[in-house]
């Protein structure tokens, strides 16, 4: 079986740091932080851990129905989507993820856009 990006970049040990970086990036962003106002920190971290593990082909999987349901009614705009993609790219770059791998991850995430943006 082909090695997933999750394994290639060091599994949970790396995701741990990636989530930290992403978490700071999201909460530091004026467009994104309001979406997480009042959201419990452990819930937010759980969300982000699953997001990254899944995007990198790790064990967590985002089931599309669930993905759509949890984002429904949050009023996620194009602008917010672009902002989160920017934080994602910044995070992946910070961890020296190869350009080709970044494109793979970005492609996987982009395919979920219609489920998330209203």
């Amino acid at each position, binding site marked *: 079986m082909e090695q997933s990006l999750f394994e290639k970049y060091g599994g949970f040990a790396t995701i741990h740091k990636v989530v930290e970086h992403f978490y700071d990036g999201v909460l530091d962003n004026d467009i994104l932080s309001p979406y997480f106002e009042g959201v419990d920190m452990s819930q937010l*971290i759980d969300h982000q851990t699953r997001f990254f593990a899944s995007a990198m082909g790790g*064990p*967590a999987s985002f089931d599309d129905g669930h993905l759509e349901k949890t984002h429904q009614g949050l009023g996620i705009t194009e602008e917010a989507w672009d902002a989160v993609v920017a934080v994602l790219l910044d995070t992946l770059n910070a961890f020296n993820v190869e350009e080709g791998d970044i494109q793979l991850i970005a492609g996987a995430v982009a395919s979920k856009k219609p489920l998330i943006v209203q």
Partner: protein
Amino acid sequence: MDLGDFPLESIGLPAAVFRWEAGQHVHVNAAFRALMEDRLGSDKTPLFEDLDALLGGQLQDVNPESEDSIIQEVKIGRKRHSFEFNVGLISRGETNAVLLLGVDKSDVLKAEAKLSSYVGIIEENNRELQRLANTDPLTEAANRRALFNRFEELVKQVSDFHCTVSILDIDHFKRYNDEYGHDFGDFVLKTFADQVRARLADKTIFARIGGEEFCVVDYSGSADIAKGKLQGALDAVRDLQLDTPKTEPVNITFSAGVAEFGKDGETLDDLLKNADRALYYAKANGRSCVIPYSADLFEKRDTTLIARVDNLKVRE
């Protein structure tokens, strides 16, 4: 004791002292004021209820005598931090005097949250692996291994255990495969499994034990009810019209042999063996029927039947 004299500034952490009562002044140190600067004026002495509001209304739920703590999120600049505020009694009186100390637990709580998230993912993953190891991927019925394990568990766990063990075999399955291809064969298996499953009660194990052979362990009630349910499933399957890759739709049927726990065996191996004998009889007896096992099934000297069984042996 005048709480205003308490050496709060000597404490390096955000701290406050006050008497535990509404309307009482709360003395805070510079670190506390800095932490709460957005919501606390720079010189005003807050009251007990102001402090309660700063702590999200959690203070009033705390018992000052039991060394409780409160977790409250506080923004420092743009960052969210989780502070743990510990409450400790410093003097008892008509109204207790307490010291409130805040510690930034963000890193610890974040690490805990990540750890619990990983554990959650790994547990989910294990459950999924477990499911895959016990399931036939095509029909999502249990596989042979899971059937035997669950049967063992039931016998151990259910007091006064009773059940029927049936083998269901799709009639002329080979013919569908040969004539319409393996994809159609898979479609037949899946449709059959869905139909049968839909007619079984909660207390059943439904397993695929061979190519087109399935086992139903029904421990929901009497053997008669179990047989009735199988007959119902057979009627439902018989009514289906399955679209084939060729022009004409086909009907499918199955034959079943039923063995009863206790009467026809105590172990799953014995029960399956006898259910299989009854199934064999059903196949010889024109198929598309449900036949309960009985010891004298083949002792009836029915020559036509024996001839049919022999004929079947030659062909299958």
